[in-house]
C-alpha cells in the first residue's frame, strides 16, 4: 500500500487517539501547552527536538501521567484508571531499563502472563520472531546490547497483539539494518489497521516511516498532518552557512552573482553569513569561486543544520 493510499485511508476512519486541550505543568514549568490532536490508524510520527514535550504527551496518551488540564481518550475510552484498556494498547516507554536477570524469552513471557495470554508460548514465539531475536532469546537481558534490549522490549510490547502502539524513541540504540527491519515491521502492523504513534527527535527516522506527523516545539503543537506537505515547507527553508576567507569582500561579490545565494552579511569576525535555499549548489560554487578568484578559503560551516533550527523555522514560518 502506498503512502498516499494509506494517508487517504486513515483520514476516512474514526480517530483512535483523541487529545483534547491537554496541558501538563510541573510547578511553574509548562511541559505541554494546550494540545489538541486526533490520531487515526496508520503510522503517525511525533516529532520535536529534545525537551519539546513529546515524552510527556506520549505518557499522558498512554495513561502514565495525568494531564493537568484536558482529556485523553484511546479507542473511545478514557485512559487513566482504566487498566482493561491495556489489553488493546501496547506502550513502549523511553526508559530502557529491563529486568536484567530475565532472559529475553522470560521477559516476554512475564509480560504475556500479565496480559493473561492463553496459550502463551505461540504468542511469545511470534513476538520474538517479529523482532528477529529468536537465536538470543535464552540469554539474560543483562548481556544484551542496547539495540537488542530495545528490540526485546518491542517484542514484549507486541506480545498481546495490540490495536494501538505508543512507542517512545523505539529506535534508540539500533543500527541501520535494525532500523530498516523495524520500519518493515511497523509497516506490516499499520497495514493490518493498527494505530502506531512513534516519537522521535530524528526527522529522517520518521520521514521514511510515518504517514502523518505531529510536530511539537516547546510544548506546543507546531504543525500536524501529511508529512509531504510539511517536508515541502522544510525544503523551502533557507540554510545559513558561515564562510571564512582571506578576502571576504571579493568572495561576497562573487557569490552574489550566482543563483545560489539569497542574501549575504558579514559577522563581527569578518566571516560571511550566507543564506541559501540551494545548499548543494552553494557547496559546489564556493570552492570553485575561491579558486577562480584566488581567494584563500579557510572554513565553510553550516550554521543551523540542527533539528532545533528546522523546527524553529517551521514554527516561525
Amino acid at each position: 500500500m502506498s503512502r498516499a493510499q494509506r494517508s487517504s485511508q486513515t483520514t476516512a476512519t474514526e480517530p483512535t487517539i483523541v487529545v483534547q486541550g491537554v496541558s501538563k505543568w510541573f510547578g511553574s514549568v509548562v511541559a505541554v501547552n494546550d494540545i489538541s490532536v486526533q490520531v487515526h490508524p496508520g503510522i503517525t510520527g511525533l516529532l520535536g527536538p529534545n525537551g519539546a514535550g513529546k515524552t510527556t504527551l506520549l505518557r499522558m496518551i498512554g495513561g502514565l501521567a495525568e494531564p493537568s488540564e484536558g482529556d485523553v481518550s484511546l479507542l473511545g475510552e478514557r485512559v487513566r484508571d482504566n487498566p482493561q484498556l491495556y489489553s488493546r494498547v501496547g506502550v513502549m516507554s523511553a526508559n530502557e531499563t529491563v529486568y536484567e536477570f530475565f532472559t529475553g524469552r522470560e521477559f516476554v513471557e512475564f509480560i504475556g502472563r500479565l496480559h493473561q495470554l492463553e496459550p502463551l508460548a505461540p504468542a511469545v514465539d511470534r513476538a520474538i520472531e517479529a523482532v528477529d531475536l529468536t537465536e538470543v532469546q535464552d540469554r539474560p537481558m543483562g548481556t544484551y546490547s542496547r539495540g537488542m534490549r530495545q528490540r526485546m522490549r518491542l517484542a514484549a510490547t507486541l506480545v498481546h497483539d495490540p490495536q494501538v502502539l505508543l512507542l517512545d524513541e523505539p529506535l534508540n540504540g539500533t543500527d541501520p539494518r535494525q532500523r530498516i527491519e523495524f520500519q518493515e515491521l511497523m509497516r506490516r502492523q499499520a497495514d493490518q489497521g493498527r494505530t502506531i504513534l512513534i516519537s522521535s527527535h530524528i526527522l529522517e527516522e520518521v520521514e521514511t516511516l510515518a504517514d502523518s506527523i505531529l510536530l511539537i516545539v516547546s510544548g506546543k503543537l507546531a504543525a500536524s498532518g501529511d508529512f509531504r506537505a510539511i517536508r515541502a515547507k522544510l525544503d523551502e527553508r533557507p540554510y545559513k552557512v558561515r564562510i571564512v576567507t582571506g578576502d571576504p569582500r571579493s568572495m561576497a561579490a562573487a557569490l552574489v552573482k550566482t543563483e545560489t545565494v539569497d542574501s549575504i552579511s558579514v559577522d563581527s569576525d569578518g566571516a560571511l553569513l550566507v543564506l541559501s535555499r540551494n545548499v548543494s549548489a552553494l557547496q559546489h560554487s564556493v570552492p570553485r569561486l575561491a579558486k577562480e578568484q584566488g581567494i584563500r578559503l579557510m572554513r565553510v560551516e553550516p550554521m543551523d543544520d540542527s533539528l532545533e533550527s528546522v523546527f524553529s523555522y517551521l514554527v516561525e514560518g
Partner: protein
Amino acid sequence: MGPIFILSVRVLANRRRLLLIVLLAALPIGLAALVSATLSEDKSSNEEFINVLLDGMLIAAIMPIVTMVTGTAAFGNDLEDRTLGYLVLKPISRLRIVLPKLLASVVVAGPLLMASGIIATLLGASSMGAALLVLDGSVQAVVGVGVALFAGVVAYAAIFTWAGLVTTRALAFALIYVFLWEGLISSYLGGVRYLSVRAYSLSILHGMDDRSFGPLDDRVIEFPAAIGGAVAVTVIFFWLTVRRLRRMDVP
C-alpha cells in the same frame, strides 16, 4: 497476581538484601545463645530476657528494620529502576499489583524473623530452665512469639510499602516512625501505643500468653485492641497504596 509476586520475591530477595536480613535475624539467636550461659534461673533473668532480647532487640529494632528493608523496596525498586510501567500498563487492577508486592515483602521478611524469635525464645527457655515463669518450653509462648512477629511484620510491611510508593525518602520516613514515634514518643505518651505497631506486637504476645510474658504488663494495650489495630493499620495502608498507585504519575 502470580507473576508479580514471583518477580517481587526475586527482586526483594537479592543476595545483598537477603544477607542483611539473615544477619539481622541471626542476632537475637546469637545473643540468646551467648547469654544463656550467664542467665540464672530467677525472675530477673526472665524479665531481662523479655525486655532486652524480645522487646528491645527483636520487636523494637530488628523487626521494623528488616521489614523496612523489604517494604520500602517493594515499590521503591520499581520507581528507582523505572520499571513500574511494565506492571501498570497491563490489564490488571491496581489492587492486584499492590497485594502481591505486599505479600512478597512479608514472605521475604516474615519467616526469617519468626524463626529468629522462636529459636531465640526456645534457647532462652532451655537455658533458664523450667523453674522460670516463662519460656518453660510451652507451645503457647512459642506460638505467641510467632503470631506477634507475624502481625508486626504484616502491619509494618503495609506501612513501608505505602511509604516506598509515596516518597523517595521512604527509609528516612521509616526510621523516624520507628525510632521517634514508637521508640520515644510512645514511651512517654501511653495513648500513642494505640497507634504503634510495636505495641500491637507486644500486646498480642502478652495477650496470647500473659503468664509467660507478664513483664510486658506496663507497655501493652488490650489484646482485642491490638488485633484490631494491626488489622486496621494493614487495611488502611494497603488501601492508601492502591489509591496512590491509581492516582500517581508513573515515572
